């Protein structure tokens, strides 16, 4: 009996470790300006995020179907999308995000602020979640907010896609936190369809560069359409 609780304890620890790694990757991505590094961080984050459901208590008895789905998730988030993004970065031949709307130090600071805010929100919610793990919801909200922040504060199309991807990871984590096997089976998993959108965006970037309709994939150049 003691051994069993020990095992549970360590599994919870493992989940906590993974969650901390996710937060770390969020902070790293906010502070980094090299696109290739960003892609690597996203690959790492994708793997960690899709591993988390394996280590949560209430997912202890998983159906074969959901295990297969989780593996597909791992493949898409950890390998397929980052690989695709790597190709895009190679094609567009730019290494750095220059002139972000909000600087790197300020972004890092914002990231820390998101963690605080997420902790505050989680504390205030007072709901009995199916998963008794506060850190999960904190990580989820932080990732979501930081993703949105990255999306809005960077000018390069590829960095915006990375921000979107991060936001999507956050949504997936929130889904996992709120999930109860009965209903949400195959609800949270539909988040994978968002990856389809990400795929399309990256494809857009790759295809455009081949057509060389612009030299530089910078959405700041996409400033022709406006209301006068």
């Amino acid at each position: 009996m003691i051994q069993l609780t020990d095992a549970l304890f360590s599994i919870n620890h493992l989940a906590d470790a993974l969650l901390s790694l996710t937060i770390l990757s969020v902070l790293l991505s906010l502070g980094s300006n090299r696109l290739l590094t960003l892609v690597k961080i996203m690959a790492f984050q994708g793997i960690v995020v899709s591993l988390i459901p394996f280590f949560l208590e209430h997912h202890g008895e998983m159906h074969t179907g959901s295990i297969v789905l989780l593996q597909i998730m791992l493949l898409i988030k950890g390998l397929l999308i980052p690989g695709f993004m790597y190709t895009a970065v190679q094609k567009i031949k730019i290494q750095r995000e220059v002139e972000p709307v909000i600087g790197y130090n300020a972004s890092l600071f914002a990231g820390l602020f998101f963690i605080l805010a997420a902790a505050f929100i989680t504390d205030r919610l007072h709901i009995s979640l199916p998963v008794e793990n506060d850190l999960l919801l904190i990580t989820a909200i932080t990732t979501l907010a930081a993703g949105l922040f990255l999306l809005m504060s960077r000018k390069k199309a590829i960095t915006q896609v990375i921000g979107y991807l991060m936001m999507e990871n956050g949504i997936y984590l929130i889904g996992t936190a709120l999930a109860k096997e009965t209903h949400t089976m195959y609800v949270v998993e539909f988040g994978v369809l968002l990856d389809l959108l990400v795929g399309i965006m990256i494809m857009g970037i790759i295809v455009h560069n081949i057509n060389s309709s612009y030299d530089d994939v910078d959405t700041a150049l996409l400033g022709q359409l406006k209301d006068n």
Partner: protein
Amino acid sequence: MLELLILIPLHVGIIAMFLPARLGRGLLVVTALLHLQLSVFAWMGKLTPQLPDYFAVTNEGILVLLVTSFVFLFISLYAVSYMNETEISSEPIYNGCTLLFLATMSMVAMADHLIVLWIAIEATTLMSAPLIFLHRSKTALEATWKYVMICSVGIALALLGCFFVVLSMDLGGVHTPITFSSLKEIAPQLDPVWLKAGFIFLVIGYGTKMGLAPMHTWLPDAHSEAPSPASALLSGALLNCAFLGVYRGHQLMYQAGLGDFSSAVLVGFGLLSMLIAAIFIFNQTGYKRMLAYSSIENMGIIAFGVGIGGLATYGAMLHLIHHSLIKSSLFLSSGNVLLGYGSKLIDKTGNMAKLFPKTFTAFFAGFAGISGFPPFGIFVSELLIIIGAFQQGKTWSISIFILALTLIFAGASRLVTKMCFAACDDPEVLVKENWARTLPSFALLLASITLCIWLPDPLYQTILSAIATIGGNI
């Protein structure tokens, strides 16, 4: 089999991608006719869903479906001639994608499952993005990027909303399928806090797609850069489908006894959209952008009407029908203007009354219609919304509503008068107008007049049953 409404355009669309352009155009019209017939059959209740867990015929869904199908038919008739004159990189992509777009919009109209609705709305983004990019110019690329990016963020937030609705089921201890028809029965048991949170995210998510301010920023760019038949389709059909998502959320809230909260949210977003449109329409330089802002305004009116409730809900439903008819007619006319002058700028146009008499008639009549002049239906619908709001004693919101309407009319009429009557600097006609490209516009306007004078009883009953689910009545 109800799913045929999705399957037929889906398969024909995939085939049309590989067919020569001319054949594809024919296929487009044939499929549109078939789709309209099937929609009418579905309306008569002759089609039953094969997958009742996911799809259902609902009154509000069938209204949106009928409007979509009807507008689509005339747009595809117009496209036959328009595509002859315009230069686009790949016409089979246009033919294929519009059909796939029709398939996804039909899916939205018939979806009964929370997640199926979400998937369908996401699919509309995917299928319509290539349509916006058809001209392959830098500005088209920008518009497409904005459209995909902003709508994707919206759709991601809508998924979050779906999670919250499911959570409210869990907390309420409800065990039913996540379909709107089964949630209806047990709505009062749902956890109110999370249901409210879910509704907010659903409105933000689907509202982005519907063009509610402040999430509307993609709309003017996308509508002005897409080829005119695609703009007509975006404005006349897609916005309604996104509205259906919001409507279903509101329905659920009403059934759960939280109708006051969701009404207030809808009225707020509606008025904000109208005001934003009123400010931005004033100094527009492009006529397609002007029409796009008018779409934002009209979506705001619909949200406002639904939020007010009672008689105004009936007005909002009428407004949805007539806005689709008149606005797609206007976008089709604007296609002729673009072909004729070769520019999207209002300054480059002028003296339309003389140079393009047929297009002028359709465009000016459409403008009168969209501004709420009789005998077009928007006159009735706006009047009903105003009366409905007065009945509810919402004096403040109705004053803002009327102010916004007046401002928009003032702003737009200045631009339209310039286009129609001011002297043109360079009166050279690039492409002459013809009946093939003006008759569809006239037909759509005529449909609006007809429905204003004589509303068939079955349609009337459908609208009444649709609005009864959110407490609307006459």
